[in-house]
């Protein structure tokens, strides 16, 4: 058994380093950008001439969030990879995976960020404006750092969830960790052992992320923790 573990673990781990981690990190990064844009558009309340146009843009982003939160990730992957070629849009498996995971993460994370931004009192915007800050300065220098503290635990949850969800990429032919373990299991007829190894590697990745989350939370909450000193 040890020989099987010793020979297969590096192969599975390498697939994790080569595919699982990059897919998760790239998709999460793109998803976060999308989430911030979506959240900002959905909380904006413009006045004047641009109001009808803005209402239309907000409706499009609200529809996007609804669509990706209301349908299973596996179905989304299949539509993007197997479905879109029917209408002439074709992606390789890697690109289809990144697009789907990013859009899915963006939809969920946008709700987290929207909630976090709305939790910051209006008085913080007033204070920022009162010293002459622009909207962008007020947002990124004053409101966002405070919202980040609120958003960090649920966003970390989303990221940990995404790392595990990348196993679904095997269904669109990406040879990530789970698929490699399946392939090895089909050769050595040791499915319990192989899937246990891959489960342990997922658990290892997620534990490392949880530790990072702990330190990030401590850093973003340093002004709150200081109250007890």
């Amino acid at each position: 058994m040890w020989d099987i573990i010793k020979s297969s673990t590096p192969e599975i781990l390498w697939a994790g380093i080569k595919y699982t981690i990059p897919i998760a990190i790239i998709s999460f990064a793109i998803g976060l950008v999308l989430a911030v844009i979506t959240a900002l558009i959905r909380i904006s309340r413009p006045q004047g001439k641009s109001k009808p146009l803005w209402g239309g843009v907000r409706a499009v982003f609200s529809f996007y969030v609804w669509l990706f939160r209301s349908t299973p990730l596996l179905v989304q992957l299949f539509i993007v990879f197997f479905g879109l070629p029917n209408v002439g849009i074709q992606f390789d498996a890697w690109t289809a995976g990144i697009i789907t995971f990013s859009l899915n993460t963006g939809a969920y994370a946008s709700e987290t960020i929207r909630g976090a931004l709305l939790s910051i009192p209006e008085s913080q915007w007033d204070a920022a404006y009162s010293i002459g800050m622009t909207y962008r300065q007020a947002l990124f220098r004053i409101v966002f750092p405070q919202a980040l503290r609120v958003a960090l635990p649920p966003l970390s949850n989303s990221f940990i969830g995404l790392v595990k969800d990348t196993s679904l990429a095997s269904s669109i032919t990406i040879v990530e960790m789970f698929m490699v373990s399946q392939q090895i299991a089909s050769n050595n007829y040791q499915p319990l052992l192989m899937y246990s190894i891959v489960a342990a590697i997922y658990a290892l990745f997620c534990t490392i992320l949880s530790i990072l989350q702990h330190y990030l939370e401590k850093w973003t909450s340093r002004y709150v923790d200081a109250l007890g000193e």
Partner: protein
Amino acid sequence: MIKLEHVDKAYRDHHALDDVTVTFDEHKTTVILGPSGAGKSTLLRSLNLLERPQSGTLTIDDLTVDYGANLTNKEILAVRRKMAMVFQSWNLFPHLTILQNITEGPIHVLKQDPVKAKQRAHELLQKVGLDNTADRFPGQLSGGQQQRISICRALAMDPAYILFDEPTSALDPELEAQVLRVLQQLANDGDSLIVVTHNMEFARRVADKIVFVEDGQVDFTGTADDFFNHPTPRIKEFLAAMEF
């Protein structure tokens, strides 16, 4: 000088400001008084465009804006850079240290040299007796200390006018006195202060001019002496209600 002319502001069925015309002089302390809900804070917040009246004009020295027009960001920033504000609940930035709270505006808005901005911040902190708090976070200070820091934050912007929105309402009497002493010092230094307050003693002792607001209208403008010693029947009633 700041001049408001024919300013109207309504929230659905409530008229917060009703054809308000009033001036605020430079290097003077103007105190805005009036019963709760009279429109005092709305009037003050209209000066730096935190509230946007539906009509009327605002003139600050050589700058005039029409509230009814679609103001550009440039116009809004030009108005806001002429004044700073101290809030009732101080509204310090909780994630920044005291020093960062004071230098945030000078460094990132006025683009001052960070070393000079920090030096000035320490001077201001010394002026209010809180230089030892520079590296602490706002939540670690008392309400009175936080309000004095928020005055430093306003002063650091070198504004032509400083707006105070009930700066002592959330403080207990001892802390209120600390803050009022700082305000009095600023008034003595010749800063241009516009103060919304319920503290009659402060108004009596410090105000160069009093503006009395009721039901969204300016009912009185004049000296503190006229206001307190020669009141109209309505002001007499208001002053009586403020006493035990």
